């Protein structure tokens, strides 16, 4: 397994690993029951400190996303409902930030609500999303 990690990011490497693994599960590239590389192997493949990988795996295990198996192996358990809730919370926070920006730019509340309305109430009118960008 390999993916890029950025040691110079303000996001610690162990967090980056956790997010990448969760993203792989979300996208279906990793399924329940699939094996993950051992801590040593992943550390070697990614070119990072074993303790960093160990911390990522430890936390993923505590969160119930992976579980330890015999012989240093780990298996994917999956993303539980409560993790889906966490992901939803993150998106909602993003929405909040966007709405704050709209407010800062003095965009009318009715314009904002129209956007929400159009998206949510589209029943079979899929392609009729208004082209106004909240102007």
């Amino acid at each position, binding site marked *: 397994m390999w993916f890029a990690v950025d*040691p*110079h990011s*303000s996001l610690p490497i162990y967090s980056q690993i956790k997010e990448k693994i969760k993203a792989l599960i979300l996208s279906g590239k990793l399924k329940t029951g699939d094996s993950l590389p051992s801590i040593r192997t992943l550390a070697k493949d990614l*070119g*990072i*400190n*074993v*303790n960093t990988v160990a911390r990522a795996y430890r936390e993923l295990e505590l969160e119930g996303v992976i579980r330890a198996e015999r012989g240093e192996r780990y298996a994917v358990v999956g993303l539980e409902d409560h993790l889906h809730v966490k992901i939803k919370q993150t998106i909602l926070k993003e929405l909040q930030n966007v709405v704050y920006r709209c407010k800062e730019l003095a965009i009318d509340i009715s314009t904002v609500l129209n956007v929400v309305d159009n998206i949510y109430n589209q029943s079979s009118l899929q392609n009729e999303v208004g082209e106004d960008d909240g102007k």
Partner: protein
Amino acid sequence: MMGNEYGLVLSVKGLMRYYGNIRAVDGISFDVFKGEIFALLGPNGAGKTTTIKCVLNLRKKDAGDIFLNGSVSFVPDGKELYGSYTVEKMVRIAKELTDKFDEKKCFEYIERFQIPFDERVSNLSSGQTTQLYLSIAFSQDAELYIFDEPTWGLDPIVRNQVLEMIRELIVDGRSVLYTSHILSEVEKVSDKVAIMSKGKILEQGYLDDIKEKYCAVIVPKNSKVDGYKYKSTETEDVYITKREYAISSNLEYSDVSFEVIFEALVMGSNNSLTA
């Protein structure tokens, strides 16, 4: 004074070392545990090399306690070897002088670094000399490896090889203490970091925790902020503060890189702001 706390390989408490009026090491404490990479990071002149020399008893300390629990393999910043010997002879000598020296491993490292075995040590470039010194040190079986600026003078590819070798050391439970002034390397390799400047440790802990602990806040000029002033623009000041403080003071904050945290802490100590 600690007993045999499990996994403690080195403990430094209140270490002080003066040169006349200059406090090269001014009361520092840190611990290195089994299986971890600990970096002493700081600008030149911070007191890192003096600290290492005190730990190894190459310099007498003026105060403090040092508890070393295990054998040590050491690579000093001046990598001196016996110039008239060939590379191969150097290895054979190391084998005779050191217990638990793996000759075969050493020759493998030397091959990996592409250093000719029959070359005289004095004809090697400074980079190659470093590589040879490191090969010898890595082939010694010790509990604690101490490196003083191990990648100095090495080109980027070789630097990465050395960093990989450092990472491999801890896989089997050995520990590494090394000094560096190169942040980008420390970020690639260390578990724990102590930021040192002017003889003092300004901050220490897991590198990841330090990244999460601090953030940047932007405030109107001349605001009173509990933090380290990082920059001043025409209208604003940028401070590096603890995230908890930013949240509890209702300040808007953003993530920052470790480099920025480091700069702010060191500049702060240079300006002697109140802690």
